């Protein structure tokens, strides 16, 4: 690029965002040195889950909605189970809640390890991919693979398989793992915990651009510890409300450039869900080891630099290993794998913390269990407005950079969110136009 970004009309554009889950594009337009337009464009084709869920049985959403996302199927299974159980007036026993939490730890491990080592770290270390990075840092990539494998092993035991687990049902599970099967996972999880601690130490040394987010953070907060499978909604603006009131506080709007709907708080401001939000609102509930790792990494009580989300994600890896070991250590079996959830007419809401942030489901069902209406709000559509706002704030002071370098850094800024575009469709799209 011979022309300077500060002169005339310039466009930073990436037609296929790499190292994100799904299909998105970015366009940032700069006119005479001012950022005039920012779009994260989601062209991932719509699949219409909310439409074809109508007419299905109340027992089917865990299997069907898992297929929205191959990276976080458990999140879909968990939020849908909670919503349907709420509609039917059933609360699952403590043991089932714990086993759900354990399965969810597996998903966090698999997803966070994938993002830290395969999608995000190459940006900080200057590679196009983890495979290229492996030529110089083989041990690092092998560590990422081991961490991911430990998460997948947990998913495979508790869920039946790593992608689209088969063992989750409304009311609980089909079969619970035995104590000896769970105990067999301990060595891999213990090694994983050590390696997760090393990962926090490593990623905390990565150079990050200076940046501060002004947005409100939103996550669940739960009496059962750092939020995963349960809780009600809290924000850094001081709001607190039950999951059932989520839609009263958040609006989704459909913009022309995206097949994802943008979610905003009702005052119209963007908000952020995911690791940064959970950390800001619930770091006191992290395991002691994870809290110590966060302190050593210099995180403080709140982290507002989205480029340091990789550090928070690594801290959450530590927590997820710790939590999985704690649950396995205390597991004494359960009276049964599931409780009955007889259908009744009603409406139910469910939210859990997917690796990328809060995932909300609502179902309205008929007295014979037929689904009449389904509503799903995935994390990436909630983050889309703040991703665009981040880009706008990020690009403006960096117009002295070369076109290619700034484009690369914009992509990195998007990856801060670990956007899952497959999820966000209905529910994303980015182009930088420098004009």
């Amino acid at each position, binding site marked *: 690029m011979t022309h300077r970004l500060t002169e005339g009309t310039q466009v930073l554009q990436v037609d296929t965002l790499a190292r994100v889950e799904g299909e998105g594009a970015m366009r940032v337009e700069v006119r005479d040195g001012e950022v005039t337009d920012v779009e994260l464009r989601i062209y991932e084709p719509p699949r219409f889950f909310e439409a*074809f869920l109508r007419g299905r049985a109340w027992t089917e959403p865990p299997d069907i909605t898992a297929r929205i996302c*191959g990276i976080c199927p458990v999140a879909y299974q968990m939020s849908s189970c909670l919503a349907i159980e709420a509609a039917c007036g059933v609360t699952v026993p403590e043991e089932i809640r714990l086993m759900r939490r354990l399965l969810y730890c597996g998903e966090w491990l698999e997803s966070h390890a994938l993002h830290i080592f395969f999608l995000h770290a190459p940006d900080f270390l200057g590679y196009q991919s983890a495979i290229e990075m492996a030529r110089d840092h083989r041990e690092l990539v092998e560590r990422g693979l081991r961490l991911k494998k430990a998460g997948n092993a947990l998913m495979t035991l508790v869920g039946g398989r790593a992608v689209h687990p088969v063992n989750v049902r409304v009311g609980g599970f089909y079969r619970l793992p035995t104590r000896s099967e769970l105990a067999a996972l301990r060595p891999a999880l213990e090694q994983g915990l050590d390696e997760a601690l090393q990962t926090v130490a490593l990623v905390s040394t990565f150079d990050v651009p200076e940046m501060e987010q002004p947005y409100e953070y939103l996550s669940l907060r739960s009496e059962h510890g750092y939020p995963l499978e349960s809780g009600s909604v809290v924000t850094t603006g001081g709001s607190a409300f039950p999951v059932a009131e989520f839609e009263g506080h958040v609006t989704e709007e459909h913009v022309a450039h995206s097949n994802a709907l943008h979610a905003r708080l009702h005052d119209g401001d963007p908000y952020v869900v995911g690791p940064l939000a959970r950390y800001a609102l619930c770091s006191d509930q992290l395991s002691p080891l994870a809290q110590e790792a966060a302190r050593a990494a210099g995180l403080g009580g709140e982290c507002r630099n989205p480029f340091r989300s990789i550090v928070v994600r690594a801290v959450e890896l530590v927590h997820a290993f710790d939590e999985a070991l704690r649950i396995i250590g205390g597991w004494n079996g359960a009276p049964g794998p599931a409780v009955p959830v007889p259908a009744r007419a009603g409406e139910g809401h469910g939210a859990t913390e997917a690796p990328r942030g809060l995932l909300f489901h609502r179902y309205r069902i008929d007295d014979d269990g037929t689904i009449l209406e389904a509503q799903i709000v995935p994390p990436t559509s909630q983050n889309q407005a703040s991703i665009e706002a981040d880009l706008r704030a990020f690009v403006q002071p960096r117009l002295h950079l070369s076109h290619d370098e700034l484009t690369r850094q914009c992509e990195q800024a998007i990856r801060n969110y670990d956007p899952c575009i497959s999820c966000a469709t209905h529910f994303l799209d980015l182009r930088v136009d420098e004009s």
Partner: protein
Amino acid sequence: MTETAALPRLAVWKFASCDGCQLTLLNCEDELLALTGQIEIAYFPEATRAVVEGPYDVSLVEGSVTTPDDAERIRRVREVSRRLVTIGACATSGGIQALRNFADVEEFRSVVYAHPAYVATLDRSTPISAHVTVDFELRGCPIDKGQLVEVLAAHLQHRRPRVPSYSVCVECKRRGTVCVAVAHGTPCLGPVTQAGCGAICPAYARGCYGCFGPQDTPNTASLADRLRWLGMPEIDVLRVFRTFNAGAEPFRRESARYEEVVP
């Protein structure tokens, strides 16, 4: 960087899908680095920013065709691919999003989006084979890691992949799982579903729900009668054939028989 020029080039493409099948490639934790010594990953946006220009020796295609642009794009993918292998239920039968094929997509669009005009979509979700010649179809929702490695290894060794087309029942017997249908009366699609997953569901005390699509010679009518005999309502028989492989012909045909009797 020394010998990569001589390695076969792999490309991974995504159409309408959940990413789970391409994730399966990254889930080959024990094989991935060894594999990259044998194959050059030339195009795989989910894993790398680097783009190596085609043509490619093997293209793995995930997802179904659901937009006018994608119907064009798959033709370009075919042109630059020596072998084209579809991975997963979306690419081989249209996926769960093929449920639109039984409904009015305009109505679907208006249910999900406030401004349906912003969304370009086709009225049917179709498998890759409906658009271009496919050299090999790998089944599953998601695909099985072992089968994916087998397909890539077979390509490197210039032989046909050993991927069976018999039913899940064979895998249950081999695994020593007691038949959930016979012993417990649990509705199970195992007899009509292709093997490949390792018969996971019956091992977890549930019936097979058909992720790998129809086996070679499925007697879906007989199985449907059995499901009815076990007490399954007609609407549920329709639903069990209308999931992730609803567009696969034997499953589509069986579900259509029940469409007539379900109000």
